[in-house]
C-alpha cells in the first residue's frame, strides 16, 4: 500500500494506492495516528487507486474516525470505484461517512 499526503487548506488529502487488508491496513491506521498527533483534524481520503479493501481496512478507517472524534475532526472519502464502492455500500460505511464523487467536490462541500 502507498500513501501520498497533500495539504489542501486546513484539510489533508490522503491518496491511498494498492490494498487495505489484514497485512497492510495498519500502515494507514498508523500514518493517520501520526497525523492526528501532529494536530491534523480534517482528512479527505482519495480511494481512486485503492484496488482492494477488506474488513481489516474498514476497521482501520473506523479506528481513525474514532481518534478524530474528541477534537471534532472529520474524515470523508472520494473517488470510490468498483469493489471499494461495493464494500462501503454493503458494510453500511456509505451511510456513516460522507462520500464524494471527486476530490474537488469533497474539498468544496465537506471541509473547507
Amino acid at each position: 500500500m502507498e500513501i501520498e499526503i497533500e495539504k489542501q487548506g486546513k484539510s489533508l488529502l490522503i491518496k491511498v494506492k494498492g490494498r487495505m487488508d489484514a497485512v497492510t491496513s495498519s500502515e494507514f491506521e498508523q500514518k493517520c495516528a501520526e497525523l492526528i498527533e501532529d494536530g491534523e483534524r480534517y482528512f479527505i481520503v482519495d480511494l481512486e487507486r485503492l484496488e482492494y479493501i477488506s474488513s481489516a481496512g474498514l476497521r482501520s478507517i473506523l479506528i481513525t474516525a474514532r481518534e478524530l472524534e474528541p477534537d471534532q475532526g472529520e474524515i470523508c472519502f472520494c473517488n470510490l470505484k468498483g469493489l471499494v464502492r461495493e464494500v462501503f455500500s454493503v458494510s453500511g460505511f456509505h451511510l456513516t461517512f460522507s462520500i464524494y464523487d471527486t476530490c474537488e467536490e469533497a474539498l468544496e462541500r465537506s471541509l473547507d
Partner: protein
Amino acid sequence: MEVSFWGTRGSLPAPVTAQIIRHKVKKALEIAAAENLDAGTDIDNLIDTKLPFWVKGTYGSNTSCVEIRDNEDFLLCDAGSGLREFGYHFLSSHKGSSPKEFHIFISHPHWDHIQGFPFFIPSYIDGTRITIYGCHDNLKESFSLQQRSPFFPVDFDSLGAKIDFVGLEPGKTYDIAGFSVSAMEQNHPGISFGYRFVKNGKTIVYSTDSEHNMASGNNEELVTFFNQADLLIFDAQYTLIDAWTSKEDWGHSNNLIGVELAQKAHVKHLCLFHNDPVSSDQDLDKLLHNTTKLASLLEEGKTPRVSVAYDGMIVEV
C-alpha cells in the same frame, strides 16, 4: 442429507401483516400487467421467472430452528418458534408411526432460541424421546423456567415425552445419531456455542449469535471450525458498521465478515441467518444480491454460493 429451515429470524418473531401482503399483491399485479397477463398466460412460469422473491414469497417470521435430516434421525439446531412448525410438519407426515427420538442442539438459552419448545407437540406425546444437547450448565433450568407459572400453563416436568439433557464440552468430538458433532464457544452475551456436524464426508456448521467485533481480527480458530464446510449457517443480523458501532457487544455478526471467513475456510455454501426482525423481505432480497456480488469480488479463495435463509427453505447437502 437435507437441511430444512423452520425458523430464521433473530431476536423475536416478525409476522407478516395485511399491509405487507397487500403491497406484495399490488407489486405482483403491476408486474403481471407489464407482462400482458391474459387467460393464456402460464401463471406458474410468470411467478417463477418474473416475480422477485420478496414479491412472491417471504423470508418468514419464526425464530431459530434448523433441521438436519439424514435417514430416520432428527437433528435440530435450536428450539426457537420454528420448532412449532417442525412439530406440526412431523406429526402430519408421520401419522400412525411410532414415536421418534429428537436430538436438539442449543446454541444458548436466550429466549428466541428456546421459546418454541412449549409449543412442540411431540413433547406432549408419551413414548417420544427428546435429548437436548448444549454446553451451558443451566439448560434444564432455562427450559423449565419458561414453562413455569405464570409464564405458561403446562409445567415442563409434566410433559409426556422422556426428555434428557446432555452436556457437551467445546473442543471434544461426539458421535450422536451417526453424526460426528463438535462445539465451539462463540462471542455473545452469556456466551453461545456453534456446532459442526459431519457425516459421510459432508459437513454442516451452525454458527449463530456469534459476534466478530473489531478486536476479533483474524480468528484462525473459527476458520478451522468452518473449514471445508458444505454448508455454513452464519449469523448476519446487522451491517458491519452497526455491528461495530451502535450495536457493538449485542452479540451478532454481518455478511461481510461472513464472506471473508467463508472464503478463508473454503466453505462451499454460505447461508446468512438470524435475519434482523426489522428487515423487510425487500431488504433481505437486497442483502442476498449485495452479498452475492461481494463474494464474487473479494478474492480470498474460492467464491462460495450465497443464500439468505428463509422459513421453509430446504438445502440439499
